[in-house]
Structure formats: C-alpha cells, structure tokens
C-alpha cells in the first residue's frame, strides 16, 4: 500500500508546478502585506508578543525558574519560537487551504496539493524574514552567529519543511470532511508547544520525562535550532536530527497517501 513511487510522482508534479507555487506564495505575501497598514509587521506581532511575555515572566517575575546557564534568555526563546510559529501557522492554515478554495477545486484542473504546499512555503518565507530579525538580536547581544554550525541550518529547515508538508497535507484533506479539526488543532498545538523545549532548555527537563520529550519530533528540531543559532560550540546531535528526519519522511508519505486517497472527494465536499 505504501508506495514511495506515488509520493515521488507527486513531488515531481509539485516541482513541475514550482513556478505556480512561487507565484502563489508571492501572491499570499503581497495580499497579506498590502491589505493592512502594519503589513509585514503583523506576521511577527505574535512571535514578538510571545517573546515579550516569556521574557517578562522568566526575566522579571520569576527569574529563578529559568536555567542559570541561559545567558540571553530572549534570544534563546526566539530561536525556538520562530520555527514554532512557522510550524503551527502552517498546520492551522493548511486546515482551511482546501475548504477555502472551493471554486478552484471544483472548476479548475489543478493539483490540489499545491494549496497546502503554498501555505507551508509562505510560512517558510516568513521564517526567513524572522531569521533576519534574529540575526539582528544576535548582533545586539554579541552572540557569535557566523559559525560552522550554520551549515546545519538548511538540513534542519528541510526536515521541518517535510514534517510540515506531511502534516499539512493530512490536515488539509481531513478538514474537508471534519470541519472541527481546526479547533481541535488549536488545543493540540498549545499542548505541543509546552511539550517542546522552547521556553525551557531540554537539559532543564526532568531526567525521567526526557524519553517522552524525545518522542516529540519537534523537540529535536527545536534543540537543533537552539544549538545551531544560539549555543556556542559545535552541533553534535546529527543522530537526533536523523530521527526527526525519519519521522518527517513518514509524516510526508502518510500525509500524501491520505491526501491522495481523499483527493476525489475534495471537489464534491468543499
């Protein structure tokens, strides 16, 4: 049943339509930034707000609660919040990517997987902008950013891309049939956020809970981002990233297969 060839064919199709994906991503960004005064800033209001809140809580209200080895806590926080924002927005928006494009699906011949893909790639571009802001913070905090570790970044981003695409396809397809997935997802993502070492470092988690944390693929991603972008010294957790990559690949295959299985029903149900 699980046929890698099928998934490959779909990726090829995505590649064939890459110019369209690029244009649609550009359109998303333009439409979002053109329609409002603050435009570009809106995308970052949420992560910056989170950053502010957690910095306040752990920096001012209860500074004792946070790990003493974290020197520039806001910077550490930002390293995790930035990819998380990309991830959670990709999933939330994937839920409506099909249901919100009924006329397209019913009237135009058009590979439907482009729609959740555009959502994920739009998030990727925003993530890229976010990295620039992060670089600004790093320079301000005098944390060395241009290390050899940065070479890992593309690989980490790729793993997250695969994971987001896989889950995005799955959620998009299921949302056509179950309209409450988006609401459920909101709660799941809140839980997921705290089950990921974003506001706390992995090393601060109790020893006995770590195996549980390890089950969460985003743990390995978040740790990887923190190690590469924030923590001094070389990144030595390629194996963990490998596990995350494996999980992401499975998510991509399963997500695609479910999507493909339900594909015929989209035009009739959206």
């Amino acid at each position: 049943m699980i046929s890698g060839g099928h998934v490959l064919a779909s990726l090829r199709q995505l590649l064939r339509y890459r110019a369209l994906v690029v244009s649609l991503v550009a359109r998303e960004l333009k439409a979002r930034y053109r329609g409002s005064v603050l435009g570009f800033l809106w995308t970052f209001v949420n992560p910056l707000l989170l950053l502010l809140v957690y910095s306040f809580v752990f920096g001012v209200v209860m500074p004792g609660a946070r790990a003493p080895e974290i020197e520039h806590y806001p910077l550490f926080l930002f390293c995790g919040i930035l990819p998380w924002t990309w991830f959670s927005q990709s999933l939330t928006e994937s839920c409506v990517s099909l249901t919100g494009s009924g006329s397209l699906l019913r009237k135009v011949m058009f590979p439907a997987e482009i729609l959740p893909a555009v959502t994920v790639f739009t998030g990727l571009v925003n993530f890229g902008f976010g990295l620039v802001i992060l670089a600004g913070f790093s320079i301000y905090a005098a944390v060395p950013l241009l290390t050899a570790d940065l070479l890992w970044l593309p690989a980490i981003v790729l793993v997250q891309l695969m994971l987001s695409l896989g889950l995005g396809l799955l959620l998009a397809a299921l949302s056509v049939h179950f309209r409450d997935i988006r609401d459920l997802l909101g709660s799941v993502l809140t839980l997921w956020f705290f089950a990921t070492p974003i506001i706390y470092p992995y090393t601060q988690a109790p020893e006995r809970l770590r195996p549980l944390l390890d089950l969460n693929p985003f743990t390995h991603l978040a740790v990887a981002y923190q190690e590469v972008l924030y923590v001094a010294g070389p990144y030595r957790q390629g194996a963990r990233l490998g596990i995350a990559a494996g999980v992401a690949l499975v998510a991509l295959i399963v997500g695609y297969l479910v999507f493909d299985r339900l594909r015929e029903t989209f035009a009739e149900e959206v």
Partner: protein
Amino acid sequence: MSAVEVRDLHKLYRRYGRRKNFGTLKSALLGGRLRADLRPDASFEALKDVSFTLARGRTLGIVGRNGSGKSTLLKLIAGIGRPTSGTIDVEGRVSALIELGAGFHPEISGRENVFINGMMLGLSKREVADRFDDIVRFAEIGEFIDAPVKTYSSGMYMRLGFAVAVHVDPDVLLVDEVLAVGDESFTHKCLDRFADLKRQQKTIVLVTHTLDLVTRLCDEALWLDHGRIRAQGDPKRVIDAYLLDVAATEDAAVSTARPVSHQDSLPQDMTTAAEGRWGSREAEIAGVELRHAHGAPGQVFRSGEPMDIVLAVHAARELTDFVFGVAVYSADGVCCYGTNTHIEGAQPQRLSGKGEVVFRIDALDLTAGTYRLDVAVHRADGVPYDYHRLLYSFRVTSTVKDVGFFRPKHGWTFSGGVEIAGPGVSSEDS
C-alpha cells in the same frame, strides 16, 4: 487522429455522512465511526457507459437537460475528478472555460492574476509573458490591469478570465455555458474567438443549452440523458431528436397543467373575457385535440411544422345556421390570427349528431413561445352555441431566436459587394 477519446465512462458521485452536514471529528471519534464517516453511504450515477471519440479539429456540442451529466463529463475530460471506471484520453493541452476567472485573488492586481491564472491553466511564466499584451488587449481592460481585481466590474472580471483561458493556446478547449453570461458584444467576441480556434484546427467541446449554437458551430453533437448517451452524430439530427423528446415531456406537463374548466355564464365583455366556456349548447364542442402532421396528438410544435386542430362536435338537434371559428392568441393575449367558416364564405348545410372538424395549419409560422386557442361554434349572427375561450394552449419551439409572433418563410440573398458566409444566411426552415 482522435483528440478526445472516451471509453466506457462511468462516474459515481458519492455522498458522505448522511446525518452530518458538517462532519466533526469529535463526533466521529466519540461515536467510534471515523471509518464509517469516511466511507460513502449513498451514491448517484452521473454518467453511465459513455463512449465517444472526437477527431482533432472537430467541434462537439453536448446537449441535454439539467442534471443529465453534461458538466460532469466536461469536468472529467478536463481532469477535474477521476472517472469511477472507464478511460479518457486527451491529446495535447486542455483548457477549460468552466468558470471564468476562477482563482482570481481580489487583493492583487489584474496583471499578477493573469500570470497566476495562466500558470494554473498550464502555461509557463514565459509563455504568459509572451501572451500578456494580447490578453490585455482582448479583455479590453486597459490601464486597470494594474489595479486590484476587487475593483473590477463583473464584466471586466469575466473578460479577463475569458481572455486568459482562450490565450492558453489549448489543443482542446472545453466550454461550459460561459456564453450565457456577459453582454452582447462580449458574446460576439467569444464566438469570433471560437471561429478563430476552429480555423486553427483546435478541438472544442461545448456544453450549452443554446441549441442554436450547436447547429451553427458544431460538427457533431451528443445528447446526454440521465447520464447516458441518447444520440450522437450530426448536430441537426441530434438536436431534432432532443427537441422531440423535450416536446413529449412538455406535452405531458402541459396537458396535466391545464384541465378544461366548464363555465357556463356569459361574460359581460367578450373581447376582454378571460378564459371560459359559454353558449347555448345546442351544438357542442365535446373535445379539442391538437395533432402533429403524422396524426399523433401533441401540445408542442416546431415552428413551421403543420398542426391540426381537431374539434369533436355534436348537435342534439339538426341545425342549419352554424359557423366554426378558431383564433390563436399569444401568451399575453394578443390575437395573432382568427378566422371562421362564415368569413371564409363556407355555406353551412346541416349539423346533426356527431362529427369532426379539422382546422389544418399547413405551416405553423410562429416564433417560439406559448400560444392559446379560442374555438367556437356559433350562429352566423354571433350568438354562441359553444364558445371555448383560451382554454387550450400549445407551445412553439424553435432553434432560432427571432422576435415577434409571425415568421414568414424567408431567405437572404446577397450580391455585389456584400459578402456574408455561415449560419443565418439561409433561414433554417425555408
């Protein structure tokens, strides 16, 4: 060389979740019927056993009633959805005009939308760029091309959508009733463009209710009825067969919808009288039937065909002073024609017992529409024996959309510097 080949096509539409209008995962999980909800629980066969081939450069018109599967067939050819069984082979690039401007994003400019729309329809970015000026010229959008699409009028929106779709340079163009929208000049533009594409040996599949368009534009026609092919081949033949079938169904509808009322009181003013029946009944019209030339009763006639109005009459006692009359009214009460045996100089001799009167119209030269009938038998001085006012109706159908009531037999002749070719030159029924 066939451009479109469809073999044994079946399409089953499935309905999911009979009880849920909007299914929720919560209820599915709570009810333990996640798999059940993802399984179809009712199905509807939209297409059954459809097969046809269309050679390159030919134009096919698909006709049929609403819900007969026309649009489904078109969508399947376009690749939107998969057939349940059977195969569809399409040679070359397909462009479908199913909804104009589907996928336009209101917030961004016409220019950007043209690029995205073009790429959705299968062009590369460069190909769109090459065609861009033509598209804008065709759509008559002018400087608005750089304004957001949400500021466009619906006409501009449609023109731009159409312009993109026809400039995709398809090998096979699929059109679903898009000509029904838009103003006169836009429709003409579309038709001109079709003619162009035909000249370029493009294959066109047209779904339409405008039967006239099928006979004018198409090389072949296909009639779908409840998902099956009822007839295919020569457009004129297929359209006639289709019209006959529609007529038969309408007959049934018209005859059940209009029971003869019996009203015996004499109205105050005969000319403005509504429908009714009055008279002394010394002679009686016991039955009225409209018949086709071949003798079959009917209520729907094609313009120009013969029609018999058959009156079954009887008189209780012998009469020597009697006149039969017939008048045809338009639906809004304008008298189109009226006559009687007295006006035409017939000499009544004797009316007794049962008899039959046939008023034959050799050619029903009326335009399309619903008409109503007066039939009467009365004395030469006008005193009615039995007057049936507007109690009967019939319908005239036509593939030509001419106006008025009366369609004389006609034809066009051109000479000298006048050159006109194509449909409309020779009147269809003459």
